[in-house]
């Protein structure tokens, strides 16, 4: 829980420094914002590690197919990275670029989940065939 307070402190500090510097030099303000985002995303990953490990434990307990959880985890990772990049782009005044990043993140997640949809389709076909 200590890291959470640290993240809040870092974000406030970065915001204040960014506002102070933004008056003089906008470029450095953007770089500072990126540094703050990277730091806080790293902190978020500290809490995500045990969650991923728990999901892997659940997968092992339930004898699920390993590749399905892998796809889900990849989708979460892509979503996280594309969201961070999109927020940084929006902060630097390129909101359109950020939206495009979100779009490509969504499309890649959709592309990644094709095997899941295929398995679902096979399942539906099997169920319908048994009727």
């Amino acid at each position, binding site marked *: 829980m200590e*890291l959470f307070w*640290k993240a809040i*402190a*870092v974000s406030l*500090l*970065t915001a204040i*420094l960014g506002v*102070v*510097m933004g008056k*003089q*030099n906008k*470029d*450095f*303000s953007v*770089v*500072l914002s*990126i*540094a*703050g985002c*990277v*730091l806080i*995303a*790293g*902190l978020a*990953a*500290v809490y*995500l*590690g*045990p969650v*991923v*490990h728990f999901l*892997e434990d659940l997968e092992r307990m339930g004898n699920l197919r390993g590749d399905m959880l*892998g796809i889900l*985890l*990849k989708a*979460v*990772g892509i979503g*996280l*990275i594309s969201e961070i990049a999109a927020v940084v782009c929006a902060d630097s005044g390129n909101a359109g670029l950020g939206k495009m990043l979100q779009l490509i993140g969504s499309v890649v997640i959709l592309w990644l989940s094709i095997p899941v949809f295929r398995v679902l389709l096979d399942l539906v076909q099997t169920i319908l065939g048994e009727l």
Partner: protein
Amino acid sequence: MLSNFGAVHRCGPGNSVYLTMEIDLVFKIAAIGIIVSILNQVLTRSGRDEQATLTSLAGLVVVLMMLAPQIAELFDLVKTLFDF
């Protein structure tokens, strides 16, 4: 203490990533930004606009070179954490 953000992330059995990010990075970037701003003002007032632009550019490159390894580290962390 905000001085050290070093953290260990466990990503499955036998799979660990070490992330060493420090708040010093934010302070360093802010300090370089302030110094470059002052230099920029001084050079602009003394009529050396080209040198002011180059100083600003050099400062930006230095800061980006400091930040790039951290971004790469974050990407590596996410790749390892989510089994890429």
